[in-house]
C-alpha cells in the first residue's frame, strides 16, 4: 500500500464520485418519471397505448445497459444525433431503468384496495386529492424497498458509463490504475467510494422505512 498514490489521486476520485452522483441522480429522477408514465400507460384501456408501453418495457428490460450506452453514444451520430458522453449516459441509463421502475410502480398502484379509493371518492375528494391523499401514501410504502433496491443497482451499473468516456468514479479509477499499475491504491479506493455511496442510499431506505411504518388493515 503506497499512501502517496492514494493522496495523489484522491482529488480525481472525488471529482469522479461527483460525476457518478450527478449522472445517477439525474437518471433516477428521469427514470422514475418515465416509469410512472409507462405504468399509467400500461393500465390504459386503450390497446394501442398499453401496447406501446408493454413493448417498450419488453425491449429495454431485455437489453444490456452497455449495449444502450454504445448505441446512444456511437451509433446515433450516424443518424445525425450527437449526444455528449454525459447526456448519452443519462439517456441510456434512464431508458434501461425506467421499465423496472414502471413495474414497481404498477405493482404499487394495483395494490391499493378499490374500496379505499371509493371511500375517498364518496366523501367528495376529486381525482387529484384521491391520488395524493390515498393512492400515493400507500403506494410509497409498498414501493419503497424495491424502489431503493433498484436505485442501488443503478448506482453500481453507472460504472459502465466509463466506457463511453464519462469521467465518473470508475473512469478515474481506471485512469489511475493505468498510470500506476497499483490496483489496491486505485481500484481499491474506488471500491470504498462506491461502497460508501451505496451505503448512504441504503441508510436513507432504513430511515424512511422507519418513519413510514405500515399499519396493515385487518
Amino acid at each position, binding site marked *: 500500500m503506497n499512501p502517496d498514490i492514494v493522496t495523489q489521486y484522491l482529488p480525481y476520485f472525488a471529482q469522479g464520485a461527483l460525476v457518478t452522483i450527478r449522472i445517477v441522480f439525474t437518471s433516477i429522477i428521469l427514470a422514475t418519471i418515465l416509469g410512472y408514465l409507462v405504468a399509467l400507460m400500461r393500465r390504459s*384501456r386503450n390497446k394501442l397505448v398499453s401496447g406501446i408501453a408493454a413493448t417498450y418495457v419488453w425491449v429495454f428490460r431485455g437489453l444490456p445497459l452497455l449495449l444502450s450506452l454504445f448505441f446512444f453514444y456511437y451509433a446515433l451520430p450516424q443518424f445525425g444525433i450527437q449526444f455528449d458522453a454525459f447526456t448519452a449516459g443519462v439517456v441510456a441509463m434512464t431508458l434501461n431503468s425506467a421499465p423496472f421502475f414502471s413495474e414497481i410502480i404498477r405493482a404499487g398502484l394495483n395494490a391499493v*384496495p378499490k*374500496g*379505499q379509493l*371509493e*371511500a*375517498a*371518492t*364518496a*366523501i*367528495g*375528494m*376529486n*381525482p387529484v*386529492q384521491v391520488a395524493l*391523499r*390515498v393512492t400515493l*401514501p*400507500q403506494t410509497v*410504502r409498498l414501493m419503497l424497498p424495491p424502489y431503493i433496491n433498484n436505485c442501488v443497482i443503478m448506482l453500481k451499473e453507472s460504472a459502465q458509463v466509463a466506457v463511453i468516456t464519462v469521467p465518473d468514479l470508475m473512469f478515474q479509477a481506471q485512469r489511475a490504475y493505468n498510470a500506476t499499475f497499483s490496483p489496491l491504491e486505485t481500484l481499491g479506493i474506488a471500491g470504498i467510494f462506491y461502497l460508501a455511496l451505496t451505503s448512504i442510499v441504503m441508510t436513507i431506505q432504513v430511515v424512511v422505512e422507519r418513519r413510514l411504518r*405500515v*399499519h*396493515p*388493515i*385487518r
Partner: protein
Amino acid sequence: MIEVTGLNKSYGTTHVLKDVDLTVARGEVVTIIGPSGAGKSSLLRCLNLLEVPDSGTLSIDGRDIVYTTNRHGRLTLRNQFALTKLRSDVGMVFQGFNLWPQHTVIKNVMEGPMVVKGVSRDDAKKRAIEILDSVGLADKSNAYPGDLSGGQQQRVAICRALAMDPTVLLFDEPTSALDPELVGEVLDIMTALATGGTTMIVVTHEMKFAREVSDRVVFMEAGRIVEQGPPSEVFEKERIKAFASGLSH
C-alpha cells in the same frame, strides 16, 4: 329530498336496474331489502354516482344531478370534479368499512372535512372528538384501523361520514361483513341516528332493523322495486314474508 326517476343500469348484458323510481323525504329512514342480485347496492351506489346509471334522472336536495359518461361508461374527468360537491353532501358507509389504514382513527374522521371542505385542523379535530365520543370510541382516537375489531371499524366509518355533516346517509350492507356478536353495536348507532332525524337509506339483510327502525321498506327483486310502504304493511305481504323467513332460517 331525493328523487330518482326511470333509473336504468346494465353491466354488459345484465340489466340490474330497470326503470327504478324512488323518492325519499327529508328525515325519512328507508331500508332497501331483497334477494342478492336484486340491484339494491347498485341503486344505492347510483345515488352518489359511484356507479353511473345508463339513463334516468337524479335530484338531491332540489338540485338535478347532471352526469355524462365517456365511451367506457365512466364519468368524464370534468364530471368527476363537478360531482365532488354532491358527494360531500351524501355520506356513505360501506360493507367493508374501507377505512384508510395509513391514518389513525381520528385522522380518518378529520380527513374529509380538512381535504374536501377546507376545515382547519383544530376545528376538524374538535368535531372528530365529539363524534367519536358519541359512538363511544373517543379512547380509540389514536389507534390504527388495523388494531380495531370489525364493529369498531364500522363505527369509525360512520363517524367519518358524519363528520361531513351530510344531508343524507347511505348504508351499503353495513353489518354484512361483521361477526354476529358485533352487529348489535353498529345497529345501535344507526338506530340512534334514525331516531335523531337523519335521512338514511339502508341496504340491509337485518329484517329486525327494517321492521322496527325504518319509516319505509322498499323490496327489490330482479332490478325492480316490487313493494314499498310502511314496514307494518310490507311485511304482511306473502312474497316478503317468504323472503324474510328464508333469511332467518
